[in-house]
């Protein structure tokens, strides 16, 4: 680790703030969690985990942008795009301790707050508040996954595009278009066309 945890004060403050949305967590309580957290730094375009490896970490993005994809039939299907404050890891591999079928790759220089599987279990065993925090964060992840799943099934291409642009305006600047298109399950050509229409303000009623 090239930096001490203290040099990430702002990012840690944001982490504290993020966790406090789920349970009330004093500064002291938050500090108790810190020894369990590793700071991991990556350059742009680095595979944080590749297929076949077992996921050791649960990561929260301190800063940067990361994508998770499944390599399928010569394609890379993006299943998640994560930026500051988002949780990203290969969860099936992490929880079942099996080889990952997903790849996680940085799109910008990225810093993670990471916790290993064993540290997490240890944390749960020692602190009932961590247990609650874990439960509530996982419930929140489920809700987000379900929302995305439902939108993919229920909304048409244009609606998915507009919704994403509205809720993630900065990602359009930070993430190559083809990855967002893949994430939204929209053809790259369609994505370009929709982006063009949006710029011209020909949105029409959503």
């Amino acid at each position, binding site marked *: 680790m090239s930096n001490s945890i203290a040099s990430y004060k702002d990012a840690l403050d944001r982490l504290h703030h993020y966790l406090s949305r789920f349970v009330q967590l004093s500064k002291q309580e938050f500090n108790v969690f810190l020894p369990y957290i590793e700071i991991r730094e990556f350059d742009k375009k680095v595979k944080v985990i590749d297929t076949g490896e077992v996921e050791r970490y649960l990561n929260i993005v301190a800063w940067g942008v990361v994508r998770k994809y499944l390599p399928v039939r010569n394609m890379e299907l993006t*299943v998640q795009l994560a930026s500051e404050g988002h949780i990203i890891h290969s969860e*099936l591999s992490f929880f079942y301790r099996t080889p990952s079928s997903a790849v996680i790759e940085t799109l910008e220089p990225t810093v993670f707050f990471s916790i290993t599987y064993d540290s997490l279990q240890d944390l749960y065993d020692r602190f009932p508040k961590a*247990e609650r925090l874990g*439960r509530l964060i996982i*419930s929140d992840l*489920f809700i987000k996954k*379900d929302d995305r799943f*439902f939108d993919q*099934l229920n909304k048409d291409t244009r609606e998915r595009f507009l919704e994403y642009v509205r809720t993630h305006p900065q990602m359009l600047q930070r993430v190559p278009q083809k990855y967002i298109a893949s994430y939204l399950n929209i053809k790259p050509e369609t994505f370009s066309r929709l982006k063009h229409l949006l710029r011209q303000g020909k949105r029409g009623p959503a």
Partner: protein
Amino acid sequence: MLELLRQFVSEFVSLTDEDFTILAERIVVRSFDKRAELLRAGEVEHYMNFVVKGLVRMYFYKGNTEVILNIAKERELISSSSSFFSGKPSNYTIETLEPTTMLSLTRDHLEEIYQRNSRIERLGRQMTTHFVLQKEEWEYECIRLDARERFIHFIERNPDLVQRVPQKYLASYLNMKPETFSRLKHLIKNNKVRPIKS
């Protein structure tokens, strides 16, 4: 009935008799006829249900088409979980396909139990994790497997459901056309489709 539930939860955490009693005290038994609506899209889900006997499906309407997201049988949980966790209106409707008996717990009771017992709260965390992983697995399967592979995977794990669930529902659940489902079922019967070696 409670013994079934006890077996089920013991795969996640070991609860003492006392822990389990706390849970059991709050459980209600609910019985429904066939084709009963437990929850309608737009309503808030208050229950987490464990199926003791029967069969239940969860679906929504896309235009005029029903899209089925879940089919739950004995020893499985069913709830519009996202609504249950968030307290927001459900996107989905839940309906019985057979006369069904379930053990149910309300969100309020569950929250109250979590405050009192950290082992049950751990159970809650692990079940929630289980839901997340199921969803993730399902998404990966939809991406990685073609119709034939999804079909085989499903019937290997749920041979009984092919008999119990109307074919059009299974087709919808597996995200394939009813004709494709029929064709695959026919091929299986004639042993022309081999299981996937994974």
